[in-house]
């Protein structure tokens, strides 16, 4: 039972100050830029929603958005079943479970740019293990020149990088199922598929909601890994939203459209996370 304690606010003041300083101030700046045209430090013109309109019309942006959606959806559709599968294959106890966990978790702790570097070194046909092996079987893997190959490389990299998160979360969920459920199923005469469907999957559902939320959010704002691996290329075939935004913001002096897009980007994330967060809350309240 929680005590109603308005003085609880004192405890969260440090957090609010901190996050406000790092978040609200910058955001206000962004909002500022998004509704003004700053011709020079002295001359600022209020332009209302003009930047917003122009940026929504921007073909480049739309293309990047489509690519981003495709990417996030594709990775999620592959990583979730794969993660569940890996979790189901993991040993539940014993000496191997520790070792397997460590190996499984390794990609998660590698700096994101190193992830990109690893896959560069791995996929290049001249010096990469994968690239070279593929060329040996007649498959010319040129991710720097072929957009399709670039996509495959980026997808493989993301799957390699983030499936462990889903697998670990699902593994934790599976571990939390009391032994008695399996015993009761045994007594009931349930088969392996029944056990998966009626005991393991329901438990995984609540865990997966966390996983899906985290993964979709993070993949929607992905920047470092594809930047290092393909630089967004060839051309802009693997340029996703964050990279496009940072190109806009830092590349040109046209901060207006960049700021406007930042707001839109932020709002999209906010909306999706709000939906997913509430969905997560209802799911965990039900169990």
């Amino acid at each position, binding site marked *: 039972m929680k005590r109603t304690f308005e003085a609880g606010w004192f405890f969260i003041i440090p957090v609010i100050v901190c996050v406000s300083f790092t978040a609200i101030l910058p955001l206000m700046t962004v909002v500022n830029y998004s509704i003004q045209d700053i011709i020079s430090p002295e001359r600022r013109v209020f332009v209302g929603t003009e930047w917003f309109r122009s940026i929504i019309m921007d073909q480049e942006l739309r293309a990047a958005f489509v690519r981003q959606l495709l990417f996030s959806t594709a990775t999620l559709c592959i990583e979730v079943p794969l993660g569940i599968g890996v979790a189901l294959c*993991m040993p539940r106890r014993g000496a191997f479970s520790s070792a397997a966990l460590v*190996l*499984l978790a390794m990609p*998660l*702790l590698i700096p994101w740019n190193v992830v990109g570097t690893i896959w560069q070194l791995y996929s290049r046909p001249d*010096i990469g293990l994968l690239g070279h092996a593929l060329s040996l079987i007649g498959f010319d893997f040129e991710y720097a020149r072929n957009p399709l190959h670039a996509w495959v490389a980026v997808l493989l990299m993301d799957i390699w990088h983030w499936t462990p998160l889903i697998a670990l979360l699902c593994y934790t969920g599976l571990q*939390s199922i009391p032994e008695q459920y399996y015993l009761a199923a045994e007594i009931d005469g349930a088969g392996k598929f029944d056990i998966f469907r009626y005991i393991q999957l329901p438990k995984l559902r609540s865990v997966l909601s966390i996983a899906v939320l985290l993964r979709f959010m993070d993949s929607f704002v992905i920047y470092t890994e594809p930047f290092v691996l393909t630089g967004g290329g060839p051309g802009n075939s693997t340029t996703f939203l964050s990279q496009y935004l940072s190109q806009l913001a830092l590349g040109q002096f046209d901060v207006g459209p960049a700021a406007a897009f930042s707001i839109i980007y932020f709002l999209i994330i906010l909306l999706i*996370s709000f939906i997913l967060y509430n969905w997560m809350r209802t799911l965990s309240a039900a169990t």
Partner: protein
Amino acid sequence: MIHAPNSALRYTLLALYLLFTVLPIYWLVSLSLRSNYEIASGFSIFPSTFNLDSYRTIFGDRAWYSGYINSTIIVAINSCLSLLVALPAAYAFSRFEFTGDKHVFFWLLTNRMTPPAVFVLPFFQMYTALNLFDTHIGVALAYLLFNVPLAVWILEGFMNGVPREIDEMAFIDGYSFPRFFITVFMPLIKSAIGVSLFFCFMFSWVELLIGRTLTSVNARPITATMTRTVTASGVDWSTLAAAGTLTIIPGALVIWFVRKNLAKGFAMGRV
């Protein structure tokens, strides 16, 4: 175990997946142990010798090893600050109800979800104006935006699992709040603090965009240093590989030490 179906199939599939996981890492380490000449001249699965030249380059070149030092300093500052700020907040969210508490909590989480790219420009201007550009504390402060909400979320989940009776007993016994928190409460949430530190470390160690934007020379983290190894004579693959390997080691050590709590930690108290 009665219910473990078909162990042979499961372990074969698992082994295949783990192979998929390990191969790229192996390749990185393997390239780091070859000279650029060896890399360019022909392909082989195993390095011909155990060549540590690239590592010597890194340890000898200030431009390289300062990157590691900077990253470490940033991670350390950020982790301490994040915990300092998150602990009381998590306690409040766990134990108290106050107006707007659920909304503040959600607002905190949304910060974690903001695209870092959105902050690139305003951060750059703000930190420059505050004279925090190219400083360790500047980057550490910036990372608070992402680490504090996560830490609060993790800590609150764990704290909910500690019965309130413990708090009440301590107060009845006459403990002052700080004494209770430090001597009674914190030992109980040791694993939560560990997991939070783990995630703070993880994020701060691996981030590139903001780290690159807010620094130039003095506080350049290793992630940014590494992305500039394209020279006129082509990419220095060997040194790049060695640098990459060196960044993995802290992570590997961390996982090894917390391996027993790994699964539990990932539950974040919520599964």
